């Protein structure tokens, strides 16, 4: 079991560029979550999917951020027109159906210059 895989581990973009972050959940897990981690805000919920369907995106900034889960083996978080305040570690987690524990990936550190 490789755990949750996130790619890339580090991404540097220029202000205004697009960034796409990838997450491969643990095989067989039905729920996928995205969180953002910063020094100032800590760990914040962004969005989650259950059985590939978007359930709640209440934590997502309304503009520029979008997430998809086209199949059960991966999810993407896309940030358009990146801004310096988007710099953070973006964490993906998955959990089995109706399970309590979330298994986190190592995160993608996004730096917007």
């Amino acid at each position, binding site marked *: 079991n490789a755990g949750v895989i996130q790619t890339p581990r580090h991404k540097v973009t220029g202000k205004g560029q697009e960034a796409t972050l990838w997450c491969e959940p643990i095989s067989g897990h039905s729920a996928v979550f995205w969180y953002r981690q910063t020094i100032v805000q800590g760990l914040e919920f962004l969005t989650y999917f259950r059985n590939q369907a978007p359930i709640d995106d209440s934590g997502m900034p309304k503009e520029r951020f979008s997430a998809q889960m086209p199949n059960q083996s991966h999810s993407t978080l896309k940030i358009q027109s990146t801004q310096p305040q988007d710099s953070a570690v973006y*964490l993906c987690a998955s959990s089995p159906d109706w399970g309590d524990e979330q298994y986190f990936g190592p995160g993608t550190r996004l730096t917007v210059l």
Partner: protein
Amino acid sequence: GDSVTQTEGLVTLTKGLPVMLNCTYQTTYSPFLFWYVQHLNEAPKLLLKSSTDNKRTEHQGFYATLHKSSSSFHLQKSSVQLSDSALYFCALSDKVTNYNVLYFGSGTKLTVEP
């Protein structure tokens, strides 16, 4: 809405001493509480979890008891080790409003010195 408060941002201790990291929460519903530990440049990992009132749960020498009367789930260890240096997050889910979504506290950075 759901929220979690961790009052200590930084805790520094000498090896062998006891530690208690505070966690209080707010929710309208029946709470599920978690402690996650994150070592430097690693993913957060589950350390403890509980939804049972007044029952102590233990793992890897750490323990915590959910007290619904005081809305608390403090993390304790009787003797810290150098390897315990990490970031500790308390988290809450309520299984009702948003099943399994975790609401995290701000985290406590524990540093254990020789």
